């Protein structure tokens, strides 16, 4: 039996995990996505890589081998199993621009279901198009409430307190949360992503290097993700005695991407 723990990642800067270029050669999937909801994920290997690298720096190689497994070395024909295992991180809440709000955090039942399992929440899953009573919106025809977005609008159909779905240590405001349907999340996610066209300038002249025009896609600042951790034994202290620490995930770190606040919970230390 594994010990169950989990981590919450709150992005403090845009987060890019995937391929930053290559759309000219046919790559249109710039960030890693979950195949069902089409929303951004961080693969378990990336999370593991970050934890492992940080531990190597602070604790040294032998500690790393103990927790993350011994790699194959010359002469030896065996590796050791890791004591700590990571699964991919999926979105729990995604901030999206909403005129007049100006930001609401959205999720869908599918994403909440995974979060519910990981964080062991007893609350029943909210229905699609649920928002708290306190969410500001445009009142239309009596008691109907409408939220406007860039590409469409949405009618809130159910009212419920969603504060049970706000993860630990996150500063989410309970009155700016909206649950949408599983069918809508992919499109709203596309609308919410941080997207930019970028160029590389020539080394000597201030003009674009030929062919160096590319797009980049990232989860926006303020996104909240969750990932499960399984441990074979207690005592894993990646952040010392603190439950949370700033960690960098993904690429484009040197140009300001990837800073995240990571918080651990469950049976890990």
């Amino acid at each position, binding site marked *: 039996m594994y010990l169950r723990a989990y981590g919450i990642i709150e992005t403090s800067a845009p987060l890019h995990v995937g391929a930053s270029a290559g759309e000219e050669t046919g790559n249109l999937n710039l960030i890693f996505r979950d195949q069902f909801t089409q929303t951004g994920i961080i693969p378990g290997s990336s999370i593991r890589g970050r934890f492992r690298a940080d531990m190597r720096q602070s604790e040294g190689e032998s500690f790393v081998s103990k927790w993350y497994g011994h790699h194959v070395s010359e002469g030896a024909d065996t590796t050791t199993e890791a004591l700590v295992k990571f699964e991919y991180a999926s979105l729990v809440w995604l901030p999206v621009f909403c*005129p007049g709000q100006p930001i609401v955090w959205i999720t869908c039942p599918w994403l909440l279901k995974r979060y519910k399992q990981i964080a062991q929440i007893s609350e029943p899953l909210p229905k699609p198009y649920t928002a708290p009573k306190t969410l500001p919106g*445009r009142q*239309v025809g009596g008691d109907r409430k409408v939220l406007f977005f*860039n590409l*469409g609008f949405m009618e809130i*159909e159910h009212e419920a307190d969603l504060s049970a779905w706000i993860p630990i240590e996150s500063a989410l405001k309970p009155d700016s949360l909206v649950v949408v349907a599983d069918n*809508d999340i992919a499109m709203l996610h596309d609308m919410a992503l941080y997207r930019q066209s970028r160029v590389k300038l020539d080394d000597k002249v201030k003009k674009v290097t030929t062919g160096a025009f590319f797009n980049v896609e990232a989860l926006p600042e303020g996104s909240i993700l969750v990932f499960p951790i399984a441990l074979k034994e207690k005592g894993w202290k990646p952040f010392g005695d603190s439950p949370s620490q700033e960690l960098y995930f993904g690429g484009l770190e040197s140009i300001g991407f990837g800073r995240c606040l990571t918080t651990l919970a469950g049976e890990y230390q």
Partner: protein
Amino acid sequence: MAWQLYGLDREAQQLVLQAKSRQPESLNQSYKMRLAVAYGLERFWGEHLRLQRSDGDKARYWKNTWDSLVKIMAQAGLKLPNDSVRADDTRAIQAMSEKLWQLDLADQRYALAVLTQLCDCLVWWTQRYKGKSTDADS
């Protein structure tokens, strides 16, 4: 009802094709529309009056875009004013402007966000259909 699209791309494509068939040169107004959004609804609406005197086709493109916006926002239950006004009718201009200024601030923001997106779509389609038409009618 839940989530509903405005269908902005479709609206924009129609607007661009109509403008192109009237007068291909008027298509460049798309970029100006996108820029004008930043100055607010009143200025955007008023621009077709300025063009009425000098260039009817360009004026029509601006007005048709406004008409589309009014139609789109109406689907979502937001009623934007849309009086038919001539450039020389000062009183009518004043009446329409009053209505625009009286819009709730939140409603203005909703309308401007959608108008911004609509103009982005116009620029997209303009970029695709610009240039000399090879149709028989040109």
